[in-house]
Protein backbone atom coordinates (compact mmCIF):
# COMPACT_ATOMS: atom_id res chain seq x y z
CA UNK A 1 0.00 0.00 0.00
CA UNK A 2 1.35 3.35 -1.08
CA UNK A 3 0.10 5.30 1.92
CA UNK A 4 1.76 2.99 4.46
CA UNK A 5 5.10 3.24 2.67
CA UNK A 6 4.83 7.04 2.33
CA UNK A 7 3.87 7.39 5.99
CA UNK A 8 6.83 5.20 6.95
CA UNK A 9 9.25 7.39 4.94
CA UNK A 10 7.83 10.58 6.42
CA UNK A 11 7.91 9.18 9.95
CA UNK A 12 11.58 8.25 9.58
CA UNK A 13 12.38 11.53 7.86
CA UNK A 14 10.71 13.65 10.57
CA UNK A 15 11.38 11.48 13.65
CA UNK A 16 7.63 11.00 14.12
CA UNK A 17 5.38 8.09 14.94
CA UNK A 18 3.68 6.56 11.87
CA UNK A 19 0.32 6.80 13.65
CA UNK A 20 0.61 10.61 13.63
CA UNK A 21 0.43 10.68 9.83
CA UNK A 22 -2.81 10.53 7.87
CA UNK A 23 -3.87 11.21 4.28
CA UNK A 24 -4.96 14.67 5.43
CA UNK A 25 -1.64 15.62 7.02
CA UNK A 26 -0.32 18.69 5.20
CA UNK A 27 3.29 19.69 4.54
CA UNK A 28 2.53 22.66 6.74
CA UNK A 29 1.58 20.32 9.62
CA UNK A 30 4.89 18.53 9.08
CA UNK A 31 6.68 21.90 9.09
CA UNK A 32 8.49 21.02 5.87
CA UNK A 33 10.48 23.85 4.35
CA UNK A 34 11.53 23.79 0.70
CA UNK A 35 14.75 21.89 1.43
CA UNK A 36 12.91 19.29 3.53
CA UNK A 37 10.36 18.81 0.75
CA UNK A 38 13.09 18.04 -1.77
CA UNK A 39 14.75 15.62 0.66
CA UNK A 40 11.43 13.86 1.22
CA UNK A 41 10.67 13.60 -2.49
CA UNK A 42 14.12 12.13 -3.16
CA UNK A 43 13.61 9.54 -0.41
CA UNK A 44 10.25 8.59 -1.90
CA UNK A 45 11.79 8.24 -5.36
CA UNK A 46 14.26 5.76 -3.94
CA UNK A 47 11.65 3.74 -2.08
CA UNK A 48 9.24 3.51 -5.02
CA UNK A 49 11.91 3.49 -7.75
CA UNK A 50 10.19 6.30 -9.65
CA UNK A 51 11.02 9.82 -10.78
CA UNK A 52 8.86 12.55 -9.29
CA UNK A 53 8.88 15.96 -10.96
CA UNK A 54 8.78 18.68 -8.34
CA UNK A 55 5.50 20.48 -8.79
CA UNK A 56 3.39 23.07 -7.15
CA UNK A 57 0.05 21.91 -5.80
CA UNK A 58 1.49 19.13 -3.65
CA UNK A 59 0.22 20.14 -0.24
CA UNK A 60 -0.71 17.03 1.69
CA UNK A 61 0.30 13.42 2.22
CA UNK A 62 -2.83 12.47 0.23
CA UNK A 63 -1.59 14.52 -2.76
CA UNK A 64 1.74 12.71 -2.64
CA UNK A 65 0.13 9.26 -2.36
CA UNK A 66 -2.16 9.97 -5.33
CA UNK A 67 0.74 11.25 -7.41
CA UNK A 68 2.85 8.19 -6.62
CA UNK A 69 -0.05 5.86 -7.44
CA UNK A 70 -0.51 7.50 -10.83
CA UNK A 71 3.24 7.25 -11.50
CA UNK A 72 3.27 3.58 -10.48
CA UNK A 73 0.40 2.84 -12.86
CA UNK A 74 2.40 4.30 -15.75
CA UNK A 75 5.43 2.18 -14.93
Amino acid at each position, binding site marked *: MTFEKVAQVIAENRDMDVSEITMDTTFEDLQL*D*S*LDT*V*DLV*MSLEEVFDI*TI*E*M*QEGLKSVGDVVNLIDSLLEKK
Partner: protein
Amino acid sequence: MKSVICDLVGIEYPIFQGGMAWVSDASLAGAVSKAGGLGIIAAANAPADYVREQIHLVKSQTDKPFGVNVMLMSPYCEDIAKLVIEEHVPVVVTGAGLPTKYMKDWIEAGIKVIPVVPSCNIAKLVERAGASAVIAEGCESGGHIGESTTMSLVPQVCDAVNIPVIAAGGIADGRGIAAAFMLGAKGVQLGTRFLVAKECTIHQNFKNKVLKAKDTDTMTTGESLGHAVRALKNPFTRQFLANENNENMSIEEKEAFGAGALRRAAVDGDEKNGCFMAGQISGLVKKEQTCEEMIKELFAETEKVLEGAKQWLK
Protein backbone atom coordinates in the same frame (compact mmCIF):
# COMPACT_ATOMS: atom_id res chain seq x y z
CA MET B 1 44.84 28.93 -14.29
CA LYS B 2 42.28 26.86 -16.17
CA SER B 3 39.54 24.42 -15.28
CA VAL B 4 36.64 22.63 -16.95
CA ILE B 5 34.47 25.63 -16.11
CA CYS B 6 36.55 27.75 -18.51
CA ASP B 7 35.84 25.34 -21.38
CA LEU B 8 32.23 24.88 -20.35
CA VAL B 9 31.24 28.53 -20.60
CA GLY B 10 34.10 29.86 -22.72
CA ILE B 11 35.89 32.06 -20.20
CA GLU B 12 39.58 32.64 -19.47
CA TYR B 13 39.55 32.43 -15.68
CA PRO B 14 37.23 30.10 -13.68
CA ILE B 15 35.48 32.97 -11.91
CA PHE B 16 31.87 34.16 -11.91
CA GLN B 17 30.75 37.51 -10.58
CA GLY B 18 27.71 36.95 -8.39
CA GLY B 19 24.35 38.24 -9.56
CA MET B 20 23.54 40.83 -6.89
CA ALA B 21 20.26 42.73 -6.96
CA TRP B 22 20.64 46.49 -7.47
CA VAL B 23 24.39 45.91 -7.99
CA SER B 24 25.10 43.55 -10.89
CA ASP B 25 24.16 45.70 -13.86
CA ALA B 26 25.66 45.84 -17.35
CA SER B 27 28.54 48.03 -16.18
CA LEU B 28 29.86 45.46 -13.70
CA ALA B 29 28.92 42.34 -15.67
CA GLY B 30 30.40 43.71 -18.89
CA ALA B 31 33.66 44.62 -17.15
CA VAL B 32 34.01 41.17 -15.58
CA SER B 33 33.33 39.41 -18.88
CA LYS B 34 35.78 41.66 -20.69
CA ALA B 35 38.40 40.81 -18.07
CA GLY B 36 38.00 37.08 -18.75
CA GLY B 37 35.57 36.05 -16.02
CA LEU B 38 31.84 35.49 -16.33
CA GLY B 39 29.93 38.70 -15.70
CA ILE B 40 26.38 38.13 -14.52
CA ILE B 41 23.45 40.54 -14.74
CA ALA B 42 21.07 40.24 -11.78
CA ALA B 43 17.47 40.15 -13.02
CA ALA B 44 16.35 40.26 -9.38
CA ASN B 45 12.82 41.71 -9.16
CA ALA B 46 13.30 43.90 -12.23
CA PRO B 47 10.87 43.85 -15.18
CA ALA B 48 11.94 42.31 -18.49
CA ASP B 49 12.48 45.67 -20.23
CA TYR B 50 15.17 46.65 -17.75
CA VAL B 51 16.91 43.29 -18.03
CA ARG B 52 16.74 43.39 -21.83
CA GLU B 53 18.41 46.81 -21.79
CA GLN B 54 21.18 45.50 -19.54
CA ILE B 55 21.73 42.49 -21.81
CA HIS B 56 22.04 44.81 -24.83
CA LEU B 57 24.48 47.03 -22.93
CA VAL B 58 26.71 44.06 -22.11
CA LYS B 59 26.58 42.85 -25.71
CA SER B 60 27.60 46.33 -26.87
CA GLN B 61 30.70 46.18 -24.63
CA THR B 62 31.98 42.71 -25.41
CA ASP B 63 31.50 39.57 -27.51
CA LYS B 64 32.60 37.41 -24.60
CA PRO B 65 30.14 35.17 -22.72
CA PHE B 66 28.04 36.56 -19.89
CA GLY B 67 25.17 35.36 -17.77
CA VAL B 68 21.85 36.43 -16.30
CA ASN B 69 20.89 35.51 -12.75
CA VAL B 70 17.18 34.66 -12.78
CA MET B 71 15.63 35.19 -9.37
CA LEU B 72 12.90 32.56 -9.23
CA MET B 73 10.74 34.42 -6.73
CA SER B 74 10.56 37.53 -8.93
CA PRO B 75 7.06 38.57 -10.01
CA TYR B 76 8.54 38.85 -13.54
CA CYS B 77 10.19 35.43 -13.49
CA GLU B 78 8.08 34.01 -16.37
CA ASP B 79 8.97 37.02 -18.55
CA ILE B 80 12.66 36.80 -17.71
CA ALA B 81 12.64 33.06 -18.42
CA LYS B 82 11.44 33.82 -21.97
CA LEU B 83 13.70 36.85 -22.36
CA VAL B 84 16.94 34.90 -21.80
CA ILE B 85 15.94 32.59 -24.65
CA GLU B 86 15.01 35.45 -27.00
CA GLU B 87 18.27 37.21 -26.26
CA HIS B 88 20.43 34.07 -26.62
CA VAL B 89 21.97 34.60 -23.20
CA PRO B 90 24.85 32.09 -22.99
CA VAL B 91 24.57 31.25 -19.28
CA VAL B 92 21.65 31.36 -16.86
CA VAL B 93 22.30 31.19 -13.15
CA THR B 94 19.26 30.77 -10.92
CA GLY B 95 18.62 31.66 -7.32
CA ALA B 96 15.91 31.52 -4.67
CA GLY B 97 14.18 28.29 -5.59
CA LEU B 98 13.96 25.28 -7.90
CA PRO B 99 14.44 26.17 -11.58
CA THR B 100 13.47 22.73 -12.93
CA LYS B 101 10.25 23.86 -14.62
CA TYR B 102 12.16 26.30 -16.85
CA MET B 103 15.22 24.19 -17.50
CA LYS B 104 13.94 22.10 -20.44
CA ASP B 105 13.22 25.21 -22.53
CA TRP B 106 16.50 26.87 -21.60
CA ILE B 107 18.59 23.81 -22.37
CA GLU B 108 16.80 23.28 -25.70
CA ALA B 109 17.69 26.88 -26.55
CA GLY B 110 21.35 26.06 -25.96
CA ILE B 111 21.65 27.93 -22.68
CA LYS B 112 24.04 26.60 -20.04
CA VAL B 113 22.02 26.43 -16.82
CA ILE B 114 23.96 26.76 -13.58
CA PRO B 115 21.71 26.94 -10.50
CA VAL B 116 22.79 28.15 -7.09
CA VAL B 117 22.11 25.24 -4.72
CA PRO B 118 21.94 25.14 -0.91
CA SER B 119 22.00 21.34 -0.48
CA CYS B 120 23.16 18.04 -2.03
CA ASN B 121 19.67 16.85 -2.89
CA ILE B 122 18.82 20.04 -4.74
CA ALA B 123 22.14 19.74 -6.58
CA LYS B 124 21.18 16.18 -7.61
CA LEU B 125 17.74 17.31 -8.71
CA VAL B 126 19.06 20.04 -11.02
CA GLU B 127 21.80 17.74 -12.33
CA ARG B 128 19.06 15.31 -13.37
CA ALA B 129 17.19 18.17 -15.06
CA GLY B 130 20.26 18.94 -17.19
CA ALA B 131 22.23 21.57 -15.30
CA SER B 132 25.74 22.15 -16.72
CA ALA B 133 27.20 22.88 -13.29
CA VAL B 134 26.02 24.03 -9.87
CA ILE B 135 27.06 26.86 -7.60
CA ALA B 136 27.32 25.68 -3.99
CA GLU B 137 26.90 28.84 -1.95
CA GLY B 138 27.68 28.91 1.74
CA CYS B 139 26.14 31.22 4.31
CA GLU B 140 29.27 33.39 4.48
CA SER B 141 27.79 35.14 1.44
CA GLY B 142 26.01 38.44 1.51
CA GLY B 143 22.32 38.75 0.74
CA HIS B 144 19.89 35.82 0.95
CA ILE B 145 21.63 32.80 2.43
CA GLY B 146 21.13 29.17 3.37
CA GLU B 147 22.37 27.39 6.47
CA SER B 148 25.50 25.48 5.43
CA THR B 149 28.95 27.01 5.30
CA THR B 150 31.06 26.93 2.15
CA MET B 151 33.64 24.72 3.90
CA SER B 152 31.09 21.99 4.63
CA LEU B 153 28.74 22.41 1.65
CA VAL B 154 31.24 22.40 -1.24
CA PRO B 155 32.90 18.99 -0.69
CA GLN B 156 29.56 17.35 0.03
CA VAL B 157 27.98 18.73 -3.15
CA CYS B 158 31.12 17.70 -5.09
CA ASP B 159 30.55 14.13 -3.89
CA ALA B 160 26.81 14.25 -4.63
CA VAL B 161 26.96 15.21 -8.32
CA ASN B 162 29.01 14.42 -11.42
CA ILE B 163 28.84 17.93 -12.89
CA PRO B 164 31.36 20.65 -11.96
CA VAL B 165 30.77 22.57 -8.75
CA ILE B 166 31.48 26.28 -8.35
CA ALA B 167 32.12 27.45 -4.81
CA ALA B 168 30.66 30.68 -3.47
CA GLY B 169 30.56 32.39 -0.11
CA GLY B 170 33.49 33.75 1.86
CA ILE B 171 35.94 33.96 -1.05
CA ALA B 172 37.70 37.25 -1.80
CA ASP B 173 41.36 36.46 -2.46
CA GLY B 174 43.71 33.85 -3.90
CA ARG B 175 43.78 31.88 -0.66
CA GLY B 176 40.02 31.48 -0.78
CA ILE B 177 40.08 30.42 -4.43
CA ALA B 178 42.86 27.90 -3.79
CA ALA B 179 40.95 26.51 -0.80
CA ALA B 180 37.77 26.18 -2.89
CA PHE B 181 39.66 24.14 -5.47
CA MET B 182 41.07 21.93 -2.70
CA LEU B 183 37.50 21.27 -1.56
CA GLY B 184 36.77 19.96 -5.05
CA ALA B 185 35.34 23.05 -6.72
CA LYS B 186 36.23 23.73 -10.36
CA GLY B 187 35.46 27.43 -10.19
CA VAL B 188 34.45 30.21 -7.84
CA GLN B 189 31.79 32.89 -7.66
CA LEU B 190 32.62 36.15 -5.89
CA GLY B 191 30.21 38.90 -4.97
CA THR B 192 31.53 41.05 -2.16
CA ARG B 193 34.94 41.71 -3.75
CA PHE B 194 33.24 43.05 -6.88
CA LEU B 195 31.16 45.52 -4.84
CA VAL B 196 34.20 47.79 -4.73
CA ALA B 197 35.16 47.34 -8.39
CA LYS B 198 35.61 50.64 -10.21
CA GLU B 199 33.00 49.55 -12.77
CA CYS B 200 30.46 48.75 -10.04
CA THR B 201 27.87 51.52 -10.05
CA ILE B 202 26.62 51.33 -6.47
CA HIS B 203 26.74 54.40 -4.22
CA GLN B 204 30.21 55.28 -2.90
CA ASN B 205 28.89 55.04 0.68
CA PHE B 206 28.23 51.33 0.07
CA LYS B 207 31.77 50.81 -1.21
CA ASN B 208 33.21 52.72 1.74
CA LYS B 209 31.29 50.55 4.20
CA VAL B 210 32.75 47.41 2.62
CA LEU B 211 36.27 48.87 2.53
CA LYS B 212 36.05 49.86 6.22
CA ALA B 213 34.43 46.61 7.40
CA LYS B 214 36.10 44.35 9.95
CA ASP B 215 35.73 40.57 10.25
CA THR B 216 32.79 40.89 12.66
CA ASP B 217 30.88 43.60 10.82
CA THR B 218 28.16 41.54 9.14
CA MET B 219 25.07 39.99 10.71
CA THR B 220 22.06 38.02 9.56
CA THR B 221 18.49 39.18 9.87
CA GLY B 222 15.21 37.67 8.77
CA GLU B 223 15.80 34.15 10.07
CA SER B 224 12.55 34.25 12.04
CA LEU B 225 10.73 35.25 8.85
CA GLY B 226 12.14 32.31 6.90
CA HIS B 227 14.55 34.26 4.73
CA ALA B 228 17.91 34.97 6.30
CA VAL B 229 19.83 37.90 4.85
CA ARG B 230 23.45 38.80 5.57
CA ALA B 231 24.35 42.48 5.55
CA LEU B 232 26.77 44.94 7.10
CA LYS B 233 25.65 46.00 10.58
CA ASN B 234 24.03 49.43 10.76
CA PRO B 235 20.99 51.08 12.37
CA PHE B 236 18.74 49.35 9.80
CA THR B 237 19.92 45.80 10.57
CA ARG B 238 19.77 46.42 14.31
CA GLN B 239 16.23 47.76 14.06
CA PHE B 240 15.20 44.86 11.80
CA LEU B 241 16.42 42.39 14.39
CA ALA B 242 14.67 44.29 17.19
CA ASN B 243 11.45 44.19 15.14
CA GLU B 244 11.82 40.44 14.66
CA ASN B 245 11.87 40.00 18.43
CA ASN B 246 8.93 42.38 18.93
CA GLU B 247 5.84 40.28 19.63
CA ASN B 248 3.54 43.24 19.08
CA MET B 249 4.52 43.58 15.44
CA SER B 250 2.82 41.52 12.73
CA ILE B 251 4.83 39.61 10.14
CA GLU B 252 3.51 42.04 7.50
CA GLU B 253 4.79 45.02 9.47
CA LYS B 254 8.18 43.37 9.92
CA GLU B 255 8.43 42.62 6.19
CA ALA B 256 7.29 46.11 5.25
CA PHE B 257 10.13 47.58 7.28
CA GLY B 258 12.62 45.78 5.02
CA ALA B 259 10.99 46.68 1.71
CA GLY B 260 13.22 48.82 -0.50
CA ALA B 261 16.12 48.72 1.96
CA LEU B 262 18.63 47.29 -0.53
CA ARG B 263 17.75 50.01 -3.02
CA ARG B 264 18.27 52.63 -0.30
CA ALA B 265 21.76 51.20 0.25
CA ALA B 266 22.88 50.61 -3.33
CA VAL B 267 21.29 53.61 -5.03
CA ASP B 268 20.90 56.23 -2.29
CA GLY B 269 23.81 55.23 -0.05
CA ASP B 270 21.51 55.74 2.94
CA GLU B 271 23.74 54.67 5.82
CA LYS B 272 20.95 54.63 8.40
CA ASN B 273 18.01 53.12 6.50
CA GLY B 274 19.69 51.03 3.82
CA CYS B 275 20.44 47.31 3.90
CA PHE B 276 24.06 46.95 2.79
CA MET B 277 24.11 43.30 1.78
CA ALA B 278 27.67 41.98 1.82
CA GLY B 279 29.51 38.83 2.82
CA GLN B 280 31.53 37.91 5.89
CA ILE B 281 34.68 38.33 3.83
CA SER B 282 34.09 42.11 3.58
CA GLY B 283 36.86 42.60 6.13
CA LEU B 284 39.37 41.27 3.61
CA VAL B 285 38.34 43.69 0.86
CA LYS B 286 40.60 46.70 1.15
CA LYS B 287 41.00 48.38 -2.21
CA GLU B 288 39.04 49.65 -5.16
CA GLN B 289 40.34 48.24 -8.44
CA THR B 290 39.10 47.61 -11.93
CA CYS B 291 37.62 44.17 -12.55
CA GLU B 292 40.61 43.33 -14.71
CA GLU B 293 43.07 44.24 -11.94
CA MET B 294 41.05 42.20 -9.45
CA ILE B 295 40.83 39.08 -11.58
CA LYS B 296 44.51 39.14 -12.57
CA GLU B 297 45.55 39.67 -8.96
CA LEU B 298 43.20 36.97 -7.67
CA PHE B 299 44.60 34.30 -9.96
CA ALA B 300 48.23 35.36 -9.54
CA GLU B 301 47.66 34.89 -5.78
CA THR B 302 45.87 31.59 -6.31
CA GLU B 303 48.70 30.15 -8.39
CA LYS B 304 51.23 31.26 -5.80
CA VAL B 305 49.24 29.64 -2.98
CA LEU B 306 48.78 26.40 -4.90
CA GLU B 307 52.48 26.21 -5.78
CA GLY B 308 53.38 26.91 -2.15
CA ALA B 309 51.15 24.08 -1.00
CA LYS B 310 53.90 21.57 -1.88
CA GLN B 311 55.79 22.65 1.25
CA TRP B 312 53.40 20.61 3.39
CA LEU B 313 54.41 17.41 1.62
CA LYS B 314 58.04 17.54 2.69
